């Protein structure tokens, strides 16, 4: 199972990194930014009627917050999966200790 999972993860990493290598001149702008441009191209008079509640000062801060989101999620998921995969041994030994 481990081997199969490692292959799947490797495939995922390849899928994610090949574009960076193959498309050297692409900017990899977010699709939502492109959609914003597309809306304004279709409807030049459209004015967004609401602004985001906060204005992020820079791309660096945005990266921080996305990393934070990933870290929180990964931390919780890792903790739960860790307990799940270690579960049986701990349950057995704590049952024996009484």
């Amino acid at each position: 199972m481990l081997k199969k999972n490692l292959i799947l993860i490797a495939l995922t990493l390849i899928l994610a990194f090949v574009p960076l290598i193959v498309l050297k001149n692409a900017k990899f702008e977010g699709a939502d930014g492109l959609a914003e441009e597309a809306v304004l191209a279709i409807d030049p008079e459209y004015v967004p009627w609401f602004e985001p509640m906060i204005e992020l000062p820079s791309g660096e801060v945005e990266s921080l917050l996305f990393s934070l989101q990933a870290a929180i999620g990964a931390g919780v998921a890792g903790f739960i999966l860790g307990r799940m995969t270690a579960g049986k041994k701990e349950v057995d030994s704590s049952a024996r200790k009484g």
Partner: protein
Amino acid sequence: MYTKTAKIAIVLSSAAALVLLAAAPSGAMHIMEGFLPPLWALGWGLISLPFLVAGYFSIKRQVEVSHKYLVLIAMCGAFAFVMSSLKIPSLTGSSSHPTGVGLGAILFGPSAMAIIGIIVLLFQAFFLAHGGLTTLGANVFSMGIAGPMVSFLVYQLMKQLKVKSSTAVFLSVFSGNMMTYIVTATQLALAHPTNGDVMTSLIKFLGIFALTQIPLAISEGLVSVVVFSVLEKYNSEALKALKVIA
């Protein structure tokens, strides 16, 4: 299956949504703040409302059955948190986020994912200026409702066809992810037709969102298969109790 209170709440919120929608005149990333005109923003919010209500009761009911489900739901939520935070480059030259809700939809059903979805969306709208509060309803519908629904239904179909679980998980998650972005493209096209023509806009938005999403949907499918296989190995009782595996 649902308690009487839950049923009444679901019916009432559906009715309210339908009544208000009937009264209103009609014209991939998540839709950005302010980019859906107020009526559309409100409309999608109303459509999503009954699903959110159903999702709340669905989670409540499943957690009441077993405390272990709460942990598993938390894990699905955490998985969605991680997946949707990753901006991954695509072969089209742009980048986008996976949704991360497919796995949870397979395990806990689509309505539970509406709640998980709105939590992720609120986090991103508040802290990251990604997505938006006015577009919350639309984004919940695409990411928390339509996508998970497709994931769930495809998985059920695969289960009926006795397809191997890893293949089933992959196809379900892939389809759900694609559906989310197809719906997003549709929502934008409906709100911003090109000279009155929705189809032209739809093709344009599909090109931006859906095409970019294909490699990402594959990636999300692969990662979901990995996580699912771990769950299958170490928590098969829960999966069997949830009727996910035989």
